[in-house]
């Protein structure tokens, strides 16, 4: 009887958790739509930039490359080979040119 009771209790718990998960999925969709609305608003778009100073202050002293690419552009990074100081990034776009900007405080 104990096991049967435990079984019923677990089933009810799982049902409750599944409902919570569905609720979270709905909220995530909502928030994603909300972010899309905000980012696509034309007024917001014209003010959605950062300055070179902003970025240099975040990465003090480093060489920086900014990449702007169309949606769907693939960025691939091969696993580095052991013993070799070689690292690679491949960028591949199918729908438009990729823009790369070298930002260097000096």
């Amino acid at each position, binding site marked *: 009887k104990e096991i049967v009771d435990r079984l019923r209790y677990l089933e009810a718990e799982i049902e409750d958790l599944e409902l919570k998960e569905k609720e979270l999925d709905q909220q995530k969709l909502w928030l994603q739509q909300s972010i899309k609305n905000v980012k696509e608003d034309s007024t917001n778009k014209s003010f959605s930039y950062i300055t070179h100073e902003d970025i240099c202050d975040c990465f003090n002293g480093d060489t920086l490359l900014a990449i702007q*690419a169309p*949606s*769907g552009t*693939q*960025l*691939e*990074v091969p*696993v580095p080979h052991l013993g070799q100081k070689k690292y690679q990034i491949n960028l591949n776009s199918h729908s438009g040119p990729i823009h790369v900007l070298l930002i260097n405080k000096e």
Partner: protein
Amino acid sequence: ASLTPKTGLLYKFNGSPSKSLKEINNMIKEGGQK
């Protein structure tokens, strides 16, 4: 040549989460440490 998960990591603009970039950074960092 096409990469597989064993040979490299992939990120898609406007398609992959930030987590993918963190995984790439960890992979590069580990490679550097080795």
